């Protein structure tokens, strides 16, 4: 068997079980005209394929397909993640995907702007500062220009006292 014969038999199998392009078919026919061995092989392959095709028709029981569709619908209805699937389908649709992307970008931008440019929240009053301010009168503030330094000193001292109070973890 020559290499050409093997190639022709390959194409022959392809031809008898389905279809081959017209150009290839012409080449196979030309080879078969000159090669008795391939002609015998071709007849056997064609015969087998014809037998297979003949036996390939199936008959389904009467009413099978309507029952099949009913059962399939019932099974699809019973699918537990049906809502999730529908939502994913909705999202995956190109039209909805574009809208979803736009809404997501806008929402992200709005959250970013709100966090970035929000006015600063008022700080809670410092308990030590409040304590010190309770001891300072208006007269003291007017008459003593260096009161700021003094206040700092008092504040540092009071912080240490507060630290020593049991149950307090910090100022």
């Amino acid at each position, binding site marked *: 068997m020559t290499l050409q014969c093997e190639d022709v038999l390959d194409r022959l199998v392809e031809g008898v079980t389905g279809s081959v392009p017209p150009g290839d078919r012409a080449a196979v026919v030309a080879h078969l005209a000159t090669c008795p061995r391939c002609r015998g092989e071709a007849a056997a392959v064609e015969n087998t394929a014809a037998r297979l095709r*003949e036996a*390939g028709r199936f008959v389904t*029981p009467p009413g099978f397909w309507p029952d*099949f569709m009913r059962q*399939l619908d019932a099974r699809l209805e019973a699918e537990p993640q049906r809502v999730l*699937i529908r939502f994913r*389908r909705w999202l995956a649709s190109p*039209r909805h995907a574009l809208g979803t992307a736009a809404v997501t970008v806008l929402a992200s931008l709005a959250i970013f702007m709100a966090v970035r440019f929000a006015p600063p929240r008022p700080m809670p009053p410092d308990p030590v500062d409040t304590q010190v301010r309770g001891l300072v009168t208006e007269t003291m503030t007017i008459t003593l220009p260096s009161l700021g330094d003094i206040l700092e000193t008092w504040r540092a001292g009071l912080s240490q006292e507060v630290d020593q109070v049991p149950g307090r973890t910090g100022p």
Partner: protein
Amino acid sequence: MDTEDHRLLEAFRRGEESAFSALVIKYREGVYRIARRMLGNHEDAADVTQEVFIRVHRALVRFDGRSQLYTWLYRITVNLCLDARSRNSRYPMLHDDELLSERAAGPGSEGEAEGRETHRLVARSVAALPPRQRAMVALRVYQDLPYQEIARIMGCSEGTVKATMFAALRKLRRALEEEGVRAP
């Protein structure tokens, strides 16, 4: 992808369940024929056909459309049939007695009886092929798919499909000769 399939897929993604029903109606016979040829009996083939469409319904939204829809569908079918065969490998495959009894239902002549016997022998010879060979024969001979699509479905090269088809036809030819089946 086929224009009609593309249109149905888009409709399904928009939430139209009727589009999925249309796809089922379009492909159910092909899926069933492959399953029945691979599994050899109506009940198993019907179960696998249901399972195929359930899985397709779950995954259709993620189908990227790079291949034909039927390539994907038939790949699921073949894989489910191979799984079913390996699960039931302890039991011998049935030889489609239902098909034979349906054919036997009509008024019988000598020629018809001979035809039935031939069909039985062909079905038995196909059933004796290894599962992957049987799948390729079903896809090629009964679904008329090109080698390229069969290779995609089976996850192998076109060369492998050609070689397997050649080997399968040889085996079938020998089996039919041994059974004394004459040319049609």
